[in-house]
């Protein structure tokens, strides 16, 4: 049985509550045990790097140190949390001065991070560590005929963590195929959703969201699957704004990939948080 430490991150408490519940339900069904970190703090997202880099790493190091105590590798469902955790661990490992400085601060909470915890994104965990074959073998209700646009977004892929493929990854597509859905090919699958520009540069972010939606719809997508709460909120909650701004008529459901996995594994919709989306997925899912 696979077991991981789990860092949900702030968004998953409310705004992305369906990502959280569907993650827990799906993991249970696949025999993956997730142990939530005790007393975790906010990772600082991208905005803390606008203030102070060292403190940004320290915030994340506290969570890593808490994870390290469990002896398990840690998994994060949010791409920003994942990127911060991955690089904090990497930098602390390669830079003893940085590690010493940060660990001196962590002492105040009785913690220490030695750099041994591996960090995985939730999508990588399911698509690579569990793997499509294992998932396929547990599918009871394949999502036949549903055309899903796999949306990677940015920080799950970038910056490059190792020597992995960042121009045309396929693991999201493979996961969608494993649950019986049809992954569509579209050019903007790794294009940024705009992130916090939705607040700080509204028109730029809306045009980025619009381009993404248009590209997916043009290629015949029934819905978009995301692996990050920020992407989900931008693509879903601001669809109305895009429609107002550009005179478009988008009504594209944006679900978390864990919700789709859960459906295929036979978990009831309510337990997966389906129904909490602002753009209803019912018309698409009714065909199943």
């Amino acid at each position, binding site marked *: 049985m696979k077991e991981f430490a789990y860092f949900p991150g702030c968004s998953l408490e409310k705004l992305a509550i369906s990502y959280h519940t569907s993650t827990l339900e799906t993991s249970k069904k696949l025999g993956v045990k997730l142990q939530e970190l005790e007393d975790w703090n906010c990772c600082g997202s991208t905005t803390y790097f606008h*203030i102070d880099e060292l403190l940004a790493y320290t915030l994340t190091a506290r969570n890593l140190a808490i994870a390290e105590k469990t002896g398990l590798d840690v998994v994060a469902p949010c791409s920003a949390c994942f990127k911060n955790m991955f690089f904090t661990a990497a930098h602390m490992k390669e830079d003893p001065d940085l590690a010493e400085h940060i660990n001196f601060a962590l002492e105040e909470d009785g913690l220490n991070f030695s750099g041994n915890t591996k960090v995985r994104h939730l999508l990588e965990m399911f698509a690579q560590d569990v793997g499509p074959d294992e998932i396929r073998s547990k599918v009871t209700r394949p999502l036949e005929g549903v055309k899903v646009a796999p949306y990677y977004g*940015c920080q799950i892929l970038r910056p490059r963590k190792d020597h992995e493929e960042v121009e045309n990854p396929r693991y999201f597509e493979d996961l969608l195929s494993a649950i019986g859905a049809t992954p569509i090919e579209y050019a903007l699958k790794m294009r940024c959703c705009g992130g916090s520009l939705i607040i700080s540069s509204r028109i730029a972010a809306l045009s980025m969201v619009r381009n993404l939606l248009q590209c997916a719809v043009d290629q015949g997508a029934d819905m978009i699957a995301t692996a990050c709460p920020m992407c989900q909120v931008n693509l879903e909650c601001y669809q109305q704004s895009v429609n*107002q701004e550009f005179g478009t008529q988008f009504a594209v459901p944006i679900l978390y990939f864990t919700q789709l996995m859960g459906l295929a594994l036979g978990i009831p919709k309510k337990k997966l948080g389906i129904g909490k989306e602002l753009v209803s997925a019912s018309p698409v899912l009714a065909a199943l």
Partner: protein
Amino acid sequence: MSETYTFTFMKEVSSLLHAADGNPFPMCVQCGTCSGSCPVAAYMDYTPRQIIAMVNAGLKDQVMESNTFWYCASCYQCTVRCPQDISITELMYALQRYSIWKNRYKEGMIGPAFSEAFAKTIVRTGRTFEPILAPSYIFSFKMREFFQEIQNATELMLKGRLPILPPRIKRLDNFKRMIRRILPMGGAE
């Protein structure tokens, strides 16, 4: 200041990067791959390629008065494609830090106040809390954007997706002492 020690703008900015492992900014060959890859370039006063050239040329005033680094979405598309392995996204972060520390940015930018509000919330509670961030930007919005936010907040609340009470970590005192070991808190406490 001696002739051998000139504290250029490029060096000032470079010194704000603790852990970035990219090449020095003067290695930029001005190929423009960053600007061609940037999803926000069309909305920037200067493209990423131009900003790098301007930093290297010491054009501090023009750089600080531009919206470019506050419009960076941190998607790292430029960084993974740069043939010279320059951490362009980290450069944007460094300029943001420089901008906040010197309290100097283009008029009308929402980014600085939003980032500060975000950071203060974490320092005080250990967590983010979306509703408390709203005052940092909502008054800068035009009417249409303002109503978009109200509409979104209402719909999210009806779906049970908006937090009502601000979350707080348990060992908050330890957490605050931890932060004080990294930087003096100034007015952030």
